[in-house]
């Protein structure tokens, strides 16, 4: 066996003894150990780490990683109808290419001059997203849609000085859990009470009577989504926003921006703050790691001054006609004011913002229209076909965008049983929501995107027919 003890590690240029010796000599130290003298001996760990063996050789490491990941079964090899917050949309190749460019991928922070290209790309992300949602002020993204909603709720509370938030009872339980986290538990003095507003069991839309009953002058914000978690397009957004406005509450709308080529921008129906996902704009699912959220609003100072995000503004330079980009309203962040800052700011999903910028540039207005039309048509086709399966029912059979709820009660099978049968055929059935929404029965949320052609939908229907037999 070769002695590898002294072999330099490929990722550490200074692991060459000569480099270490030269640096030790320069600082007048005899050993590296000496450099750690300030750590008291009784703090030191002197044991051995029980770590798996090192794989400094790339050929070995690659083999190991591929073998391990090879135990996964992906949505590319299989046919997946899972959505519920993470969506299998097509990621154009140039999105990966740009986001993978070493310059962007490894970029840290320099000056507005040395970061110019990245800052511009971020500004372009905000600018394009602003066009989609119809808003003028857009921050850099936060971790997820849920986090964006949580931040927006806190913004509303700060703006209004109130501490109640109304959300739809049909909201994604996962996303709702995040919002509740952000709104703090009841023991905290600054707790924001999150209350759910019922939804109409026939349409999936918000129950306006229940909303009216709960709306009052102590409500900070009314949050609703379109399309909502159950897939439905909230058609009475303007009425909801008007009701909120009457009570001085902030209207917060959650959207999946990939729908906005055919759906009205929330600004059209009165949204004050818009939040949503950016995962659908060019991010891979990454087992949920593709999540990313945004916050947008009108460019009003009262709103702008409550943003917890990094914000990039266009500005001039010392040369007339030249533009550059810099952080704006930086001081209100936690970097500027620590605990006095707006919530907190930190690393988020800023590379995804670049990916999304590329995605939106590639799509343009017509790309968004086409994809929206294609998805809504195929989703309705899928719903129609699925409803033909004996015993299977589509709960909200119209007024949805890409997701719809399928109830299996009539088949005598549970969602789990159906999905097990589908999996055996290489199909990942819709997300089981029967535990979260018991009123809907044995229900699953199916998702259709542009990757599901008629052939794939027909394949699902055939498999379902067998599965429910």
């Amino acid at each position, binding site marked *: 066996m070769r002695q590898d003890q002294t072999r330099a590690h490929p990722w550490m240029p200074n692991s060459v003894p000569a480099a270490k010796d030269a640096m030790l000599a320069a600082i007048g130290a005899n050993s590296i150990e000496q450099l750690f003298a300030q750590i008291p001996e009784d703090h030191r760990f002197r044991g051995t780490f029980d770590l798996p063996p090192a794989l400094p050789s790339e050929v070995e490491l690659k083999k190991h990683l591929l073998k391990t990941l090879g135990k996964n079964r992906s949505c590319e090899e299989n046919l997946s109808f899972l959505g519920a917050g993470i969506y299998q949309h097509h990621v154009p190749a140039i999105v990966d290419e740009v986001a993978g460019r070493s310059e962007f991928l490894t970029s840290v922070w320099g000056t507005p001059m040395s970061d110019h*290209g990245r800052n511009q790309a971020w500004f*372009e992300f905000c600018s394009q997203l*602003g066009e989609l949602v119809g808003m*003028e002020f857009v921050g850099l993204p936060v971790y997820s849609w849920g986090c964006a909603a949580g931040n927006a709720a806190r913004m509303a509370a700060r703006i209004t000085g109130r501490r109640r938030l109304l959300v739809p009872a049909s909201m994604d339980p996962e996303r709702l859990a995040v919002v509740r986290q952000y709104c703090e538990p009841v023991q905290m003095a600054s707790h924001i009470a999150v209350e759910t507003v019922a939804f109409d069991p026939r349409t999936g839309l918000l129950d306006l009577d229940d909303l009216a009953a709960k709306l009052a002058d102590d409500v900070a914000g009314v949050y609703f989504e379109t399309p909502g978690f159950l897939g439905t397009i909230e058609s009475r957004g303007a009425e909801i926003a008007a009701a909120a406005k009457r009570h001085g509450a902030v209207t917060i709308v959650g959207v999946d921006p990939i729908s906005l080529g055919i759906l009205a921008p929330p600004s059209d129906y009165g949204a004050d703050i818009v939040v949503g996902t950016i995962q659908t704009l060019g991010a891979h*699912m990454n*087992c949920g790691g593709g999540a990313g959220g945004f916050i947008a609003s009108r460019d009003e100072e009262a709103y702008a001054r409550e943003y917890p995000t990094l914000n990039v503004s266009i500005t001039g330079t010392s040369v007339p006609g030249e533009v550059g980009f810099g952080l704006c309203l930086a001081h209100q962040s936690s*970097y500027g004011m620590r605990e006095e800052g707006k919530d907190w700011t930190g690393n988020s999903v800023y590379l995804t913002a670049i990916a999304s910028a590329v995605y939106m540039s590639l799509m343009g207005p017509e790309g968004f229209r086409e994809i929206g039309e294609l998805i809504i048509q195929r989703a309705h086709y899928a719903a129609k076909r699925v409803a033909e399966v004996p015993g299977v029912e589509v709960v909200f059979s119209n007024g949805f965008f890409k997701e719809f709820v399928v109830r299996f009660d009539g088949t005598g099978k549970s969602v789990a049983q159906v999905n097990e049968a589908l999996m055996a055929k290489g199909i990942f059935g819709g997300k089981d929501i029967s535990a979260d929404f018991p009123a809907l029965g044995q229900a699953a949320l199916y998702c259709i995107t542009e990757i599901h052609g008629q052939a794939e939908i027909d394949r699902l229907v055939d498999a379902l027919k067998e599965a429910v037999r």
Partner: protein
Amino acid sequence: WNEPVVMEMGVPGRRGAVFPAAEAEVAAAVGEASSLVPAAMRRRAKPALPEMSEPDVLRHYLHLSQEVLGMMNISLFGTCTMKYNSRLSEQISLRPQMADMHPYQDPRTLQGILEIVHEFDLILRQLSGMDQFVFQAAGGAHAAYTQTAVTRGYFAAKGELEQRNQIITTIQAHPCNPATAATSGFEVITLMLEENGYPSIEALKAALSNRTAALMLNNPDDMGIYNPQIKEWVRLAKEAGALAFYDHANFNGVMSKIRARDLGFDACMFMLHKTFGGPKGGGGPATGAYGCSAELAPFLPKPVVVKDEASGLYDLDYDREMSVGKVREFFGNLHIVMRAYAWARAMGAEGIAEASDISVLANNYMEKRLLAVDGVTKSHPHLDEYRLEMTRYSLEKLKEETGIGVAELSARMVDFGVDAPWLAHEPWLVPEPFTPEAGEMWSKEDIDTWCDVIAQIAKEARENTDHVKAAPHNAAIHAIDGSALDDPARWATTWRAYLKKHGAQARRAAG
């Protein structure tokens, strides 16, 4: 070079991405798309997005990438522990078995990624002594937030949450600690540094009480000074009934040398996107790995990856009654965890220890070189100890003598093709601060080159002050006008706002 803003580009009708029309049978079955959208919700005006062809979009963003210096040359970006980001991990991250995985797949189809999460959890347990890690937090600050959420859960379960509403931190702890504590509804008590470079035990004692929920701090902080009383701190905190959280943002300096749990900490966090070799990407996707003791584990956000030792199968445990719920949807940025796992495997225990050694050695070497520059001083100059992985320097002297401070230095560095270092988090305890970090990935030659640039600029500051002040001269753009950035009448985070506020003059000719 004058790359237009994308909003100025394109031609009506030009297309980048196109999609097929729905299949004939599909269209026949459901009708026109517009008929499927409730009338009130149909989009009337098209979004004013650019209309571009695919090659034009690609070239535009490639050009923007060319206008980023980042880590393409030498960037000793402090407080971030920047590392080599293996291209192997990037390749693998695009494999369908990573990229095209859905979080709600049956766990039997997620065995590979769950194994990686679990194995990496075990690695971090070794390095920290903690009993369980979760990866739901999407960044270091988010992991600090997780700490505050877990703290709430822990004390709520004990019925003490209303009483214990204070969190103690230090002025040099990363701002995310006080900020997340405040966001979680805690009152923040900040201890100041004293002569030794860390707060005194007395100050801590004065702050601790039965209202203290937790202690949140870094050690060493950006000064590179290790608080040798930290064990006593933790003991005192626990004596007061509080939790102790170790923010390992500065882990490189103590990696393999100490373990948070051994020192008594209840929890800690690691930045996988930095310390463990994930790419920074300008600021994420990131992962804050949050680890804690068995006592706190029941309160962790759910789900937690568990292994059935009998079957060898991995699963997602959602059935955690005491869990504080979620800090973000799903399980975390698992593509970043994968990269961190790959990094840890490539390094191994010895490599990880060596990375810490080299990082501290290189920092001290850099210190030697920088302090040789007339005008550069360091924080707490009276302390003789070798600093750990970074040191805070000051240009106060140079600024006084020449008018050239860190802002001017940073701008001028760009002209040499090297990037500016991190300065310091606010508040600036040290005037005109800067905090480079050599880490283990930059060669001695790189460090020398970088220090040569500092020395050169310090020289120019005396000989050619105006030239430095007018920098950069060779960058993509010239010095920006910062005055608009906080002016409501002029800031513009979108092109829409820009057009609105700056009107016709905003419209530069494209190209």
